[in-house]
């Protein structure tokens, strides 16, 4: 059938897509009916609790669990010995879920109990005797790179001798030269990107600005703590109900850690009360399974908020140096950066992505970025919305703001002058296809917020940002029900309204109403492997697979119509929710609606279903430009965000409300990061603010309504032009707010958070220098 004739590769006219219906999960969420991680319960289930290290770094000399085991009501106590190392498992994940010989951070799991109730479990935890030998610790990234720093993993990482890098092709930056003769072994990785010759480029510059920057670790701050219920039967079959962004990942990682065949573990994801990247790994899940395996009963583990802060992954803290050279007209001639990100006690900080994103917004002939992945005595970092990008953008966009100020060029104009566009060779390698940075800058400049006159102690900041967007493994099924409605089975957890978007795309493709499609998130035994809901990939990848699965179904439905009419299959086309005879048969038969085809499915060959699986590519990056106005109280350093504008390229906004929601959410998380959020460590390396009282995410009254503009530069990699939008929105805010504060009071914040004590101290410094 000539399917492609009425479903072109890039559709530009839509009926359902672009509308704003209520999300299918909305009523359950606002009425409290939705089931989140902690809402699952099984008969006879036990309460699991985890004992955690009170030390930042300590040798575990012994663990005595005998008294806990003897306590009535305790059904299982486990240590690392109950989770023996399996061949091929991820050793870092294994060590992170349960310490093996050394506690590497405050909050590191050391043992766990399962008991008949929480009260008994709490008592049991107190009866476990752990003999620690406290070791020297390090939590700061720069300190961890010093030659005399405590080493977390002796012998694991090759010492880096900077003197040997001095003459290497990509030696970069003042900071590296400063430490040129030092060697150490908390450096888990080094990444270099760039092209051209920055050293030559800087010689052409009329102005060069370079500075050092630091950002503190911030937590994703999801409202729902991690929770799961595990049930392992005596025959080794297991089920797990869990709050996660990636049920297939949870299944495969847990099976690998526990030495199970993947087929024996079925994972069902719950509704998710926020993840933002933090639920893309395992913490309590293998522990709950190991407890259940030992106790022979279901075990539920629910983290407290304090455990979430101490033992799950915040993002990295970072120390950075950025140097940019420009001509008088604002043209950038060279850029150079060194980024050092600590990722907690294990390798894997997002410095590589931070390095790739740092200068991605700009068309640079000479650019170099060197990134270091460093380990410290902090919890293992986890992905956090555009992992690694907000920090490097903070430094780069801050330097650009200063260059614009010094040259007297408008903050948007200088970015327009240097903006990456189609054909630009990006700073990390690939050449960009159609991208929308210029469009976001132009829309920001035209927006009313950019024209508002500012008052005393008020200032305006601008920053742009980039995120790659991921695609990846995706598998979707769509089943035609007997009445012509549809059941859409997705394998990507809905973290941002994606079920609504999938229903819109299915409805669009079929020419039926949104209400006739119901999407569910399937368990891991119902669909082929799906990658995690991360990297802003879901609406792109599952959307692509949904469209293709629907097209598969349409071919089959046209086939049934052909059978009913007795004409060739390729003489049928699908239009407006019905099969129509086409070509020479056009008009010979009345169209068969989807309801009529569904009603006759049994008689014409059986159930009808569409299916599609792909390792998708072509996600298409999303660029954004933010503009914010702040007012600073010069006597206290208090800051108020007056206005905040997000302009971002969505390619095609499937459900504009949820696109705007992503823009707003990222902006607010970024505002929290720049103003008040931080991991605050005591001298002993323990976390001092493991709760929402003193870990200050913004409350509603802290932020204005975030204004949004959706720019649509279609992504040719998606049938409707979709680009992921979930992550880019957190990339510009750090620099955007900092640039606005600088405009307001002349203080350039280069160390985050820009909390009132720091701002006030800086203001007094400025006043003193003027006096």
């Amino acid at each position, binding site marked *: 059938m000539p399917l492609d004739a009425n479903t072109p590769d890039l559709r530009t006219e839509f009926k359902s897509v672009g509308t704003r219906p209520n999300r299918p999960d909305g009523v359950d969420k606002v009425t409290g009916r939705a089931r989140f991680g902690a809402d699952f319960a099984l008969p006879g289930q036990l309460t699991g609790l985890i004992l955690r290290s009170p030390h930042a770094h300590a040798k575990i000399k012994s663990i005595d669990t005998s008294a806990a085991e003897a306590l009535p009501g305790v059904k299982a106590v486990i240590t690392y010995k109950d989770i023996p190392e399996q061949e091929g498992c991820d050793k870092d994940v294994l060590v992170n879920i349960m310490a093996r010989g050394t506690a590497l951070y405050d909050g590191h799991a050391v043992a766990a109990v399962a008991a008949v109730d929480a009260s008994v479990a709490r008592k049991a935890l107190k009866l476990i005797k752990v003999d620690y030998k406290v070791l020297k610790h390090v939590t700061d990234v720069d300190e961890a790179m010093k030659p005399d720093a405590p080493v977390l993993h002796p012998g694991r990482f090759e010492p880096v001798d900077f003197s040997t890098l001095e003459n290497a092709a990509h030696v970069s930056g003042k900071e590296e030269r400063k430490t040129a003769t030092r060697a150490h072994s908390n450096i888990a990785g080094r990444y270099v990107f760039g092209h051209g010759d920055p050293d030559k480029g800087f010689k052409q510059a009329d102005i060069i600005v370079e500075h050092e920057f630091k950002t503190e670790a911030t937590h994703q701050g999801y409202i729902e703590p991690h929770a799961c219920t595990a049930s392992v039967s005596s025959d080794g079959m297991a089920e797990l109900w869990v709050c996660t962004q990636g049920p297939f990942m949870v299944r495969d990682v847990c099976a690998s850690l526990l030495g199970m065949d993947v087929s024996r573990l079925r994972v069902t994801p719950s509704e998710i009360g926020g993840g933002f990247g933090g639920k893309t790994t395992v913490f309590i899940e293998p522990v709950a399974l190991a407890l259940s395996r030992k106790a022979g009963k279901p075990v539920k583990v629910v983290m407290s908020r*304090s455990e979430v802060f101490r033992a799950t992954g915040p993002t990295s803290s970072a120390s950075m140096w950025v140097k940019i050279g420009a001509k008088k007209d604002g043209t950038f001639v060279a850029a150079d950066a060194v980024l050092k990100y600590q990722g907690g006690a294990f390798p894997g900080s997002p410095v590589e992505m931070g390095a790739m994103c740092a200068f991605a917004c700009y068309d640079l002939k000479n650019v170099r970025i060197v990134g270091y992945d460093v380990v410290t005595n902090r919890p293992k970092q986890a992905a956090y919305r555009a992992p690694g990008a907000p920090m490097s953008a903070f430094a780069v966009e801050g330097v650009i703001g200063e260059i614009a100020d010094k040259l007297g060029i408008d903050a948007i104009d200088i970015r327009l002058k240097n903006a990456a566009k189609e054909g630009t060779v990006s700073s990390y390698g690939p050449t960009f296809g159609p991208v929308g940075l210029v469009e976001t800058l132009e829309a920001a400049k035209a927006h009313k917020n950019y024209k508002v006159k500012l008052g005393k102690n008020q200032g305006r900041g601008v920053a742009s940002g980039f995120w790659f967007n991921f695609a990846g493994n995706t598998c979707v099924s769509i089943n035609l029900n007997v009445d012509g409605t549809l059941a859409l089975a997705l394998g990507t957890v809905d973290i941002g309204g994606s079920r609504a978007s999938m229903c819109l795309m299915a409805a669009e493709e079929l020419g039926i109403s949104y209400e006739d499609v119901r999407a569910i998130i399937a368990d891991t035994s119902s669909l082929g492997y799906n990658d995690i809901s991360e990297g802003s990939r879901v609406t792109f990848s599952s959307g692509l697979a949904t469209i293709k699965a629907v097209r598969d179904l349409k071919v089959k439905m046209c086939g049934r119509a052909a059978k009913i009419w007795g004409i060739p299959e390729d003489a049928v086309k699908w239009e407006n929710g019905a099969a129509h005879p086409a070509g020479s048969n056009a008009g010979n038969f009345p169209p068969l609606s989807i309801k009529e085809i569904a009603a006759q499915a049994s008689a014409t060959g059986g159930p009808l279903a569409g299916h599609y699986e792909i390792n998708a590519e072509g996600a298409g990056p999303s660029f954004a430009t933010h503009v914010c106005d702040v007012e600073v109280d010069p006597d*206290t350093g*208090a800051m108020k965000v007056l206005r905040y504008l997000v302009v971002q390229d969505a390619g095609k906004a499937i459900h504009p409300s949820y696109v705007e929601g992503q823009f707003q959410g990222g902006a607010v998380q970024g505002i929290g990061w720049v103003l008040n959020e931080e991991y605050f460590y005591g001298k002993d390396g323990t976390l*001092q603010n493991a709760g929402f009282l003193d870990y*200050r995410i913004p*409350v509603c*009254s*802290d932020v204005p309504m975030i204004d949004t503009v959706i720019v649509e530069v279609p992504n040719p990699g998606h049938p409707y032009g979709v680009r992921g939008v979930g992550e880019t929105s957190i990339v510009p805010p750090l620099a955007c707010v900092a640039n606005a504060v600088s405009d307001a009071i002349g203080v350039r914040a280069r160390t985050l958070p820009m909390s009132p*004590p720091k701002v*006030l101290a800086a203001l007094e410094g400025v006043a003193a220098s003027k006096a």
Partner: protein
Amino acid sequence: MRYEAPDTIKAAVGLLSKAKGTSRILAGGTDLLVQMRSGMIEPDLVVDIKSIPGMREIVAEKGGFRIGAAVSGAELEEHGKVGKMWPGVVEATNLIGSTQIQGRATMVGNLCNASPAADSVPAMIAAGATARVVGPKRTRDVPVEDIAKAPGKTSLAKGEFVASIFLPKAPARTGSAYLRFIPRTEMDIAVVGAGIAMTLNAKGVITAAKVSLGAVAARALVVEECAKAIIGSTLDDAALDRLAAAASAAAKPISDKRGTVDFRIKVAGVLARRAAVIAYDRARG
């Protein structure tokens, strides 16, 4: 853990006097329940005082008001007359927590939790409030500033608890105010707090004043130098400068996750000055 809800002060005092181990009073519970849930404390006895007559009442007394220990922030606000006489006290109490917390949280709980950052305490001190302490031996009225000793520690003896707060009659041309600094706009703990009350004569000259600072020492401070700095003035700029300097000089804070020493010292002066301006305007009507 034993939970008791006696219906007389005598019974409550009896339970507390005889209790072994850790005992706690439950009024609003907004500190107690959080501390219990987080494992900070595991009381052996919890005495809920909400069933005792008078605990949830505000009654007029000698031109002022007696406020029961279990009166919530929301009830205090809705009363109206207390806030008209002592706006500083009511606005300070209403800053605690969220709307939901206001439905339970009490001034007396705020006082007896003995946090140096308690918002209602500097405001009560500035207003000259007294706490009625009941106990096994006698009932005594104690100035609010003498209840908290150090973070988490009070001057109450075993078996004693605070049954009510008395706010005296405000003289004519009296104004009060409380300001705090928090990094957010709400739902936070004071980094610095400043409570002030003052009385003017007919010419607008300050004849009496009391200033109390929170979160800049181990307990709320009464700063007599601040009062001296403005008494006899019409709160001109020079008086305000003296006031701010006295407040900063009196502050003896620590650096912690909520703020630094330098910041708290500076902001103590800023808030004292700003609160004084508000109180002065209120006193003039």
